[in-house]
């Protein structure tokens, strides 16, 4: 070993580094396989609440209510100010957000149309709802009411998993 020094260019012992990399590789590979298969669309202006639930998200239509917007499947349909949607976007009852309703009906009609042709697709009325943790329940109620009018009756609220206790 020592004799090598005379050759001019010292050779690094990379075995230890390689050991570490191999372990890191295995660790990352394990994590990779357990990653969620559902690719969720989300917004940058959102802080998720934390929950101890262990249910994994499913791949259905997503409604996002971030700090400023209401987004359906990646498209902004309405804006809100701290949970208050402007009154000209509400219907007469004060519960239904009209642009959200229109967007949801469009999707539910499309799903029904596909379900007619393709038996593997079902229109189950499930919808994923991502909401900022500080938004008030009044907005949630309006969104839920609107979704209910568009035949989306089952909600899945998204949260981040709270690790441990």
């Amino acid at each position, binding site marked *: 070993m020592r004799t090598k020094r005379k050759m001019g260019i010292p050779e690094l012992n990379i075995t230890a580094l390689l050991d570490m990399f191999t372990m890191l590789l295995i660790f990352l590979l394990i994590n990779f396989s357990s990653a*969620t298969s559902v690719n969720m669309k989300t917004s940058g202006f959102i802080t*998720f609440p934390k929950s101890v639930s262990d249910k994994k*998200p499913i791949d259905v239509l997503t409604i996002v209510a971030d700090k400023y917007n209401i987004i359906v499947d990646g498209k902004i349909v309405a804006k809100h100010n701290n949970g208050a949607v402007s009154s000209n976007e509400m219907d007469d009852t004060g519960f239904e957000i009209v642009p959200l309703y229109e967007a949801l009906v469009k999707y539910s009609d499309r799903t029904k149309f596909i379900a007619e042709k393709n038996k593997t697709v079902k229109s189950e009325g499930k919808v994923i709802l991502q909401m900022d943790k500080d938004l008030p*329940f009044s907005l949630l109620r309006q969104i839920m009411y609107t979704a*209910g009018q568009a035949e989306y*009756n089952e909600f899945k*609220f998204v949260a981040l998993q709270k690790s441990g206790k």
Partner: protein
Amino acid sequence: MQGTNRRKKRIQAFNNVNLTPLLDFIVAVIPVLLLSVTFFDYVTLDASLPAFVGAESQSSSQNSEEKLGLTVAITDDGFVVGGQGGLLKVNGGETTIRKKATGDYNYSSLNNKMVEIKKRFSKEWTVIIVPQSDTRFETLISTMDATREHMAVDASGKMQKETLFPDVVIGGGIL
């Protein structure tokens, strides 16, 4: 080049396996894997609209004698737990599970109450949660957590999860 020349001189080649290609490969793979790793997990909590579960629970309640209609209202002072025909009394006649002195909702106390109720009504799965208009979404999620399951350490020291009331119905709320 120098390396190979050197290795030719050495008969015991295995003393010095060239690990550099392997290292190249690993260095290339690790960033790819690192990018794809999620360090946090999304989870979902189920909730439904009142009308939807109403129809479902009506049919199931026909064969069970006791109907509970468990309701948890989130108010400014704390939680009010009610059932068919009255409010639950906690701590000497009071009906509200008060907030802690810190101003946080007392989720653990609510959780313990739910465990007591579950013992009495073991076939009930539905809870109606009635938040206020200004209740924050985070509070609602934590309340759903507190009513859904209870974590307890059993005799052998293992954490056991007891399911309480997983079918959540979000009530209209106090306007």
